[in-house]
């Protein structure tokens, strides 16, 4: 009985430790300022929904309702404007990151001489991993 327990235990240990020996990648933290803005956007939208509900339920006067709603709308406008400009700069960062990762991948793949297969999402044709467009239908490869 205890022999069985020991073997299972050791098998378990090996299974747990295995990922430590894998050649692995690191992850990149997501862009935090964009998170914050997305939070803000969600909040303003939630506030507007609540305000409209409160007004419908007769909890605030029409004057207050119009006044507060206007304030929320302009706040939403500001947040979205900021978000858009952040997004484009975040995209630039992401693209830079992707490009540098692409270089790495290409190197390791060449070393292994073991190319993974890539398929077009439009027509399903197999393409080269580094292809930018599908060789059959011309759809951009993601």
């Amino acid at each position, binding site marked *: *009985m205890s022999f069985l327990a020991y073997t299972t235990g050791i098998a*378990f240990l090996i299974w747990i430790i295995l990922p430590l020996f894998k050649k692995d990648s690191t992850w990149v933290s997501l862009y935090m300022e964009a998170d914050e803005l997305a939070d803000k956007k969600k909040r303003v939208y939630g506030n507007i929904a609540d305000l409209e509900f409160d007004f419908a339920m007769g909890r605030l006067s029409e004057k207050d309702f119009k006044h507060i709603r206007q304030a929320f709308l302009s706040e939403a406008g500001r947040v979205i404007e900021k978000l858009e400009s952040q997004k484009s700069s975040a995209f630039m960062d992401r693209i830079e990151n992707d490009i540098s990762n692409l270089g790495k991948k290409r190197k390791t793949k060449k070393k292994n001489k073991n190319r993974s297969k890539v398929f077009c999402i439009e027509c399903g044709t197999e393409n080269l991993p580094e292809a930018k467009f599908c060789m059959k239908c011309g759809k951009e490869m993601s």
Partner: protein
Amino acid sequence: MADLGNILLFFLFPVSVFTALTALAAGITKRRGLLEAARRGAYAAFAVTTLAVLALEYLLVTSDFSIEYVASNTNFALPLFYKIVALWAGHNGSLLLWTWIVTIFIAIVAYQHRHKNNDLMPYVLFVMGSTMVFFSILSVFISNPFQTLYQEVGNTLQEFTARDGHGLNPLLQHPAMVIHPPVLFIGYVGSVVPFAFAIAALITGKLGTEWIHTTRRWALTTWGFLAVGIILGGKWAYVELGWGGYWAWDPVENASLLPWLTSTAYLHSVMIQERKGMLKIWNMALVIATYLLAIFGTFLTRSGIVSSVHAFANSGLGPAFAIFLSMGIIFSVTLLLYRRKDLKPDEEMESLVSRESGFLFNNLLFLLATIAVLWGTMFPVISELFTGDQITVGPPWFNNIMIPIGLALLLLTGAGPLLAWRHTSVETLKRSFGWPILGSIIFIMALYAFGIHDGWALGSFAISFFVMWTILVEFVKGANIRRKNSGENFLLAMYMLSRKNTRRYGGYLIHAAMVVMFVGFTGNAFNSETRAEVGEGDSFNLGPYTFNAIQITEAQTENYSSQTLELEMFRNDRLISTISPEKRYYFASEQPSTEVDIYSTLREDIYAVLSGMSNDGTKVIVQVYRNPLVNMVWIGAFIMGIGTLFAMLPNLRENKAGDK
């Protein structure tokens, strides 16, 4: 099997340490491999503990009395059912159950987030893993349930097998035993999940609402389990302990109430953070406090620091818990102080008469309640520190403080939802409060005319009426508005309305449940009781009821001997029912136990206890309580459970016309 259990448990310690450390390393290096290893560590901890629990169950069911835990909590004659649940009847076993639930939760969280929240997850697993390390130390090294029995032979200790076990404490031989401890434990342990995410947010600086959204359902589930667990405990005490009530402000009861109070406060104040970006530090503090109070509650029950009906006798865990608790407090407070600049509010309060200020008052009251209960519970310890004597504050002290706080909270339950966010004008205040207030005044005048003159009770009924009215208006008005816009019939409109915002309407349902429960609590103001020594043929009165003692019978089973009194109950000369309170004597544990009999209606409970024999041995002593409205408490609790489940449903999304 005991060896196997021991080996399994022994694995838990290194696996937990491994999980916590690799998770921490993953957080620092952001390496996927480390995070995956930590995740597997979590799964392994769960697997190992599950097998250990099964091993202990095997020992319990097969009555292996060479194991100390099995011998002191079960015996041969114990029904199989109770042998199984004896897993959580004693200190060591219930600690293993605690540990098991921790590993279940860490495995669930690790699995749920295997593809997301990479930034938070390492620290989440680190915090949960550390909790697991602590409990594995307790289970493996201090309170091991697989400990064998020893006896001294000359100068050496020898293992031996007891001929029969000591049996299960008679008070625990009740169906509620199956459900109350695990439910409460899930409530306690569940608080580790929001705590872990909060700490992870503090460490990574990702302090937005992401951690709140991620843990919303966990916080609510934990809250619900705690609430249901507490009430089940009350129900159990009511039907089993035989003192006529369900809540006595006992330290262990208080210990479960404390995290419930802070997590209720959190569920409310978090809405201010979501809507206004305020109270960020406060919400963090509440989540941290809930977790620490849950640990503190476990500490209180098991350290022997305060005496209580159901505290485990001094188990030697005190110092370990004290160290873990202080580490938790220092760690979280330091982190909170370190991040205080990033937790500044985004907006300011605009008006004192608004929904957010309602929530603020609510939190203030919950804070007061928490401090009061904590103070009253710890008073014996504090007084011993300064005066050398343990001075206990009794239920009257708690009632004097908690009844006003409770009523104020109940009032807010009704008033808060009538206030608009940001600002409510006097005009709208008059419109929303006028009718409900008038209605409540008329209602209590009617009650007064019917003969209810107790001030607190009248106040409580008035507030209950007011709150119920406002909740009904919320549903009806909301449904009417929807019906006008959508053309659905009224019931469908009400259903669709509440399914589209389950948190809001589930919350209202829970509020309504609280009202029903408060009506039940208020019934305590009208309790009455009587005590009589009766022989066969004697009779006595309580209020409008007359009781005739018909016969006293004695019986014996394998497990216990018993004495039963059969009482006929008359109201205005009409036979209503027969009730038969019973007293048992359990052979194995050599302990007596009372089996109360309750005649229960919506209006009141007639609760009879057979206390024992009279001094001359010719008569039996019976105690009868008349407890009005007790059933409201259980009905309210049931509605609360439904409300909690409803609030957990995902919101229904409607496709607008034209959308595909």
